[in-house]
């Protein structure tokens, strides 16, 4: 059980690191696109 929780916890940490990196890069592009679309939207 101890080894099981170790593997689970480490997998979660690695996934978290991976996703944070991707979201940090691509999320910024999403914000730019969203603001661009809102700027072009009619009043």
């Amino acid at each position, binding site marked *: 059980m*101890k080894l099981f929780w170790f593997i689970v*916890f480490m997998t979660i*940490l690695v996934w*978290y690191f991976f996703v944070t990196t*991707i*979201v940090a890069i691509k999320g910024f592009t*999403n*914000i730019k696109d*969203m603001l661009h679309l809102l700027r072009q939207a009619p009043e």
Partner: protein
Amino acid sequence: MATNFNWFLDGAIILIYLIITITAGLMVRKYVKGVADYLVAGRKVDVYLGIASLAATEFGIVTCMANAELGYKYGFAGTSPGICLFFAMLVVGWTGFCIEPLRERGVITIPEYFEKRFGKRVRWASGLVIVLGGLLNMGVFLRMGGDFLTTVFGLPPGYLEIMMTIILLIVAIYTILGGMLSVLVTDYLQFIVLSIGLLSATILILWQFGWDPLVSTLSEKYGARAFNPFHDDTYGIDRIALDLLTGFASILTWQTMIVRVLSAKDAETGKKIYKATSPFFLVRFAVPAFLGIAALHYFSSFGGAPSNAIMALPTFLAVAIPSLLLGLLIAGMLAADMSTNSSYMLAWSSVIYNDLLEPIHKNRWSEKKGLVTNRILVALIGAFLLVYGLWYPLKGDLWVYLQVTGTIYLASMATILIAACYWDRANNWGAIAAIVTGAIIPIGFLIMQQLPATSQIAQELGPYKPSVLAFLVTALAMVGGSLSKPARIKT
């Protein structure tokens, strides 16, 4: 109070973070042209921003303290709600169950969708229980945030009110002005700061204490039940049943979660946001639970455990994390708290405006009047949080309080939503019966907890069975109520 917090070094990190966040939040307010921009960001949200926003919103100081308390008291078994939420979000995101028809209707809130199936009264009643359950649930957020910060800063308890007011004012400024747009942009920043702080602190603790000593402490204290929620029934099958029910119900109907689907640019994007965010719910429970376990190990070895388990996390972090990293971690926790408070304030104000005030404004108010009303509502919710946070004495586990108050609307809204999407025979009689039943049981339990004459019965009964019962009885009320109304004869 003992702390490694350095006002010069750590204070500077927090100040820089706050300046960047508030500036970003205020800068986007110029893009808000109408109520739809204010409440659902003009429905222009793409996948990665949606993930950052949903993850940041659902991870606040309150969640972190509650989940650390579960780790501190139950070990790894305390991560059960996270496993249930992960599973529920993955299934819903994969299948599009309920969220697909909901997004395709282009509504702002769930009660708005109910009106299309069950009429205006059901919409209004749904709005009422959503606001009631949501505000009671959020009522403890500020106090917990204040408790956390005063402890890690090493301030006397008398500073609690000042800390609560400061948190509220900072969040209120950009939420009132920028609405969902400000919330999304600040959520993005907060997700990054929170993740850096949390990952750094977790790795440092792992390096400092090691995995084996932590799990050995768990084994000594709690035995096998710390690793298996089903062992000896200590965590309890009724509790796991409630975790699963509230998990599915909140994924489907919790306004702060579902609004990400409703703000998405289309139903497919909404499904992708849910699928990709689902593992974050494991992070949301596993990492704080790990910190709670580390706190248990630390206090077992060196003493100094707080009398209240909910304070284990801040007390531990204040002495175990060195300066500079502590500043980064507090900035991360502050980020988590700000994103949660801003999203929650906006979510409940959107339901009040969209569903409770709808009979008054009938969607005929000008965009300007609608915006002003929404901003006033956000400010009023902020004031309520301050008063309620100071007044309400929390009894029992924090996570249980969050589940019980959530059940006030989760049980009925999830039942009605499923029926509205997939059961042709469902009608307004069933919906009203479900709303009343779903609210009475959890509210009754909260009142029983507070009254001296009934508090003993409430304690013996425990919070899980009444909450599970609320889900079951609500489903029966929906079916019974709908079937008892004579079906219309098609001509």
